[in-house]
């Protein structure tokens, strides 16, 4: 990774470095070239001057000769003298210029040139004073006499100087001319050198420039290709960001979003304000403050070099968050989002980023939840099947029939036309009794699922009984629950029918799975083992109440078939009532110096020739006389005037009245008084009677006298 990144940088820098170097080289070359060119120019000027000067010694000779002849012929010599003076000055000036040019041409310090230049100066120094002497005379050279003109003193002196100068002129021509010739030759060489060197510089410069051109051409082609690649990559990135379903975004060091994010991000986050936003601000409306704080800590962890990003996946608090978005049509919509983060190590100036990925996982979560639900449903189904398998088949079938009958009867009660308040109350009580009876049986058989449903229905009914005013509308929950119960029961019925197909003949008392009941007696006796049912009722009720109770039974195997169903129903109710209402909790019993396990006794005996006695008793707290009276008064079951006149037995009798309940808490196990209401009705329908014996703090005993069963088929009204 590192190496690649480095290559990329070098490739970017190389053309710049090369161009810079080349430019520097060219600048040096051109500077040198310009210098050489100006030196060349100076050298050329010097050469030209030197060449011009070469003719001067000759010229001096000519002018000096003209002066000499003029003097001889006594003609005017001022003009040639003036020429000589001008030429001599010109020669001096030309020498100065040559020196200047030599200096400019960089030849001022050249030994050979210096030598030649020295020789020239020396030669000229020998000759120049002679010329100065010639031109130094003033005044006319002639004295005019009658016999003609003749030289005066000035003329004579002039003539002497001219002759001297002419005498030296040949040497001067030789010396000065020679020096100038040498100088010109030297300069010629220098010019040649300078020209060659200039040409080389220019050639090198041209070569360098050419090379630069080639390189630049190469780089520009390469970069054009690279930028085409970059453009294509950019387009592809844009395509990806435009189409990807996940919300992708980059976070910088400040945890702010940049301009690069996928088109789906605003859609997933339900906001258009995404660009350049701080991630924290974006998240704030979505999650609780605590989650937000944890999330920001988590994201910051990703900057820590030491932390391995793969090893902190599981602590990501944004792994699955439920968020609420306002729906366009009003209301809110719940969605599930999942955020993930990855480090992105960008090169150079771009620095490091975090790549954020947000996905809407609502569908996934919902599917998972549905799966969970269906698992739970399956489990419930399985539990139900297990419950059913534990019930002996014959009992199950008979329960399904009884329950179905009771529910149909409830429905028939509802269907009766009564609309008046008293009629509605009667309906409530009627349905209540039916439901309560079935509930007891379901509980006794361990059919928890159906017992729970019956309990719910009972709850609805109980709630209605508490209401001061009831109308038909209030029965809607009742009928809906009844409907649901019937469906559930139908399911159990179907199951029982299936079971019938696989049930071995003559073995209908055996459950397929051993029941939870201990000591279950599986005998040839076709009757349900009532003792076992009662034992379970007592045990379950006691456990639910936090009480301890032991059941003792006597004579239950001798119940005539005609009474079996009635005694079954009655004893289940009353045994449960005994545990719930009769006996005390262990603390209470300890305070009363009683054994902490209470005794519940159920017996069925023949009583002479006229009938039977069914007894249900407990060694609990006895019937609370005061509370019964208070409750009856409060519920309007008796008037205060009646209450004042009532005897104790009559007060105890109130507990059999419909709607009486002294239980503080309503539980699935007992406690609405409806049990006793139903018991009383059943006993009366059988032509029997109930007696109560109780002592406060000691015991409660119910004695039910039943007449001799005449017809085996006699049944009580369900």
């Amino acid at each position, binding site marked *: 990774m590192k190496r690649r990144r480095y290559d990329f940088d070098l490739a970017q820098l190389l053309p710049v470095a090369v161009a810079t170097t080349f430019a520097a080289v060219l600048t040096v070359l051109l500077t040198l070239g310009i210098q050489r060119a100006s030196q060349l120019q100076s050298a050329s000027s010097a050469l030209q001057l030197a060449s011009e000067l070469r003719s001067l010694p000759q010229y001096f000779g000519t002018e000096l000769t003209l002066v000499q002849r003029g003097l001889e012929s006594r003609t005017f010599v001022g003009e040639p003298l003036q020429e000589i003076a001008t030429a001599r000055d010109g020669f001096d000036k030309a020498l100065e210029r040559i020196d200047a040019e030599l200096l400019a041409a960089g030849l001022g310090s050249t030994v050979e040139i210096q030598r030649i230049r020295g020789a020239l100066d020396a030669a000229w120094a020998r000759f120049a004073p002679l010329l100065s002497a010639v031109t130094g005379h003033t005044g006319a050279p002639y004295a005019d006499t009658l016999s003609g003109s003749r030289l005066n003193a000035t003329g004579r002196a002039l003539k002497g100087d001219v002759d001297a100068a002419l005498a030296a002129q040949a040497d001067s021509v030789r010396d000065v001319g020679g020096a100038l010739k040498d100088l010109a030759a030297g300069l010629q060489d220098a010019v040649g050198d300078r020209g060659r060197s200039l040409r080389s510089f220019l050639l090198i410069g041209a070569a360098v420039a050419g090379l630069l051109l080639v390189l630049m051409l190469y780089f520009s082609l390469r970069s054009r290709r690279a930028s085409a690649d970059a453009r294509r990559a950019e387009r592809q990135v844009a395509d990806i960001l435009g189409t990807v379903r996940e919300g992708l975004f980059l976070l910088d060091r400040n945890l702010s979003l940049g301009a690069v994010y996928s088109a789906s991000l605003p859609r997933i986050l339900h906001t258009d304000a995404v660009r350049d936003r701080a991630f924290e601000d974006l998240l704030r409306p979505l999650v609780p403050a*605590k989650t937000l704080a*944890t999330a920001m*800590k*988590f994201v*910051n*962890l990703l900057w*820590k070099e*030491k*932390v*391995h990003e*793969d*090893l*902190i996946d*599981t*602590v*990501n*608090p944004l792994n699955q968050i439920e968020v609420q978005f306002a729906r366009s049509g009003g209301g809110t919509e719940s969605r599930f989002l999942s955020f993930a983060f990855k480090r992105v190590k960008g090169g150079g100036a771009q620095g490091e980023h975090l790549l954020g990925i947000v996905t809407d996982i609502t569908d996934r979560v919902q599917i998972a939840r549905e799966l969970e639900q269906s698992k739970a449903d399956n489990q419930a189904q399985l539990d139900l099947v297990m419950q059913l398998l534990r019930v002996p088949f014959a009992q199950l079938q008979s329960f399904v029939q009884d329950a179905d009958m009771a529910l149909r009867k409830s429905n028939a009660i509802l269907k009766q036309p009564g609309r008046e308040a008293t009629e509605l109350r009667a309906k409530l009580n009627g349905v209540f009794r039916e439901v309560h009876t079935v509930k007891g049986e379901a509980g006794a058989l361990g059919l928890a699922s159906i017992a729970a449903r019956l309990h719910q229905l009972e709850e609805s009914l109980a709630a209605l009984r508490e209401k001061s005013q009831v109308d038909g509308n209030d029965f809607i929950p009742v009928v809906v629950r009844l409907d649901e119960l019937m469906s559930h029961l139908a399911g159990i019925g179907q199951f029982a029918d299936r079971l019938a197909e696989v049930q071995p003949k003559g073995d209908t008392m055996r459950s397929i799975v051993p029941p939870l009941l201990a000591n279950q007696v599986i005998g040839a006796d076709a009757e349900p083992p009532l003792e076992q049912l009662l034992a379970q009722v007592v045990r379950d009720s006691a456990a639910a109440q936090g009480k301890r109770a032991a059941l003792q039974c006597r004579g239950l195997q001798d119940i005539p078939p005609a009474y079996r169903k009635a005694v079954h129903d009655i004893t289940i109710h009353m045994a449960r009532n005994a545990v719930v209402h009769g006996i005390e909790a262990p603390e209470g019993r300890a305070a009363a110096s009683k054994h902490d396990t209470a005794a519940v006794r159920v017996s069925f005996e023949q009583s002479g020739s006229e009938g039977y006695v069914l007894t249900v008793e407990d060694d609990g707290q006895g019937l609370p006389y005061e509370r019964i009276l208070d409750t009856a008064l409060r519920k309007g079951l008796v008037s205060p005037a009646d209450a004042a006149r009532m005897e104790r037995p009559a007060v105890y009798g109130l507990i059999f009245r419909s709607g009486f309940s002294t239980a503080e808490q309503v539980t699935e196990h007992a406690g609405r008084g409806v049990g006793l209401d139903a018991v009383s009705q059943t006993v009366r329908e059988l032509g029997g009677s109930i007696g109560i014996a109780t002592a406060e703090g000691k015991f409660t005993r119910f004695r039910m006298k039943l007449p001799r069963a005449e017809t085996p088929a006699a049944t009580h009204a369900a």
Partner: protein
Amino acid sequence: MNATRAHRLMIVDDSNVMRRKIERSQDIPNVEIVGTAGNGHEALALHAEARPTLVTMDLTMPEMDGIECVEQLVGRDPDIRILVISALADKATAIEALEKGASGFLCKPFTERQLNDALVKLIES
């Protein structure tokens, strides 16, 4: 870290079963188990003596909990690599351990494979 040099692993967990499970599970060739500790104090004592370079760290322990232990171990040796191994009840606690200098987190229960993968990544980090 130098791949050829052996990494010295210390296991910190208050559960005996868990310590043995980690011991048995880890099978990375160049990792050597230099000791196990049942709480933070033991871990610090063992660190002084055995100089581990890698640590697996439980969070909820008696005496001194994992977070404080992580802080102290990192204080002694900034290069130490710590993998927090805990049943994840609260992500904030795990994040705190990472803020204090742990390098990674592995959720209990884990498979042998998950443990070894995590240790390899821990060495890389």
